[in-house]
């Protein structure tokens, strides 16, 4: 019971670092199509997955992201 309550309060925060041309466009399309999904992700747009310095992921984790999604 207590566990349930706790898990209700905590919402994971997820950083998504995504490519402008593919995933970001796909995310826009999900919006245009009104496909609903959880609110936990914060998208950071980069021009290409190739631009993503792996350290970004490490820094996101250090800064408290519960998860990091990289999508090209």
């Amino acid at each position, binding site marked *: 019971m207590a566990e349930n309550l706790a*898990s209700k309060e*905590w919402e*994971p925060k*997820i950083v*998504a670092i*995504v490519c402008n*041309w*593919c*995933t970001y*466009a*796909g*995310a*826009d*399309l*999900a*919006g*245009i*199509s009104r*496909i*609903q*999904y*959880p609110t*936990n*992700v914060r998208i950071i747009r980069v021009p*290409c*997955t*190739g631009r*993503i310095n*792996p350290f970004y*992921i*490490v820094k996101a*984790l*250090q*800064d*408290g*992201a*519960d*998860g*990091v*999604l*990289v*999508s*090209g």
Partner: protein
Amino acid sequence: MARRKFATLKSFLNYIGVEGDRTIFTWVSASEGDRFAQVIKGVTAKVRALGPANKLVKKFG
């Protein structure tokens, strides 16, 4: 190239004890709005299952 970087980073993070499900890599194309939503659902569920991050995290450090 990018995928090699992520493959190694993910593997390494997991190796040092940061759960593999906290770092997720995938591909979504511009026409895959539905896939994007599915990815987010999947990722959120995976991370939720792990609970709050407590490794490498500065505020707990």
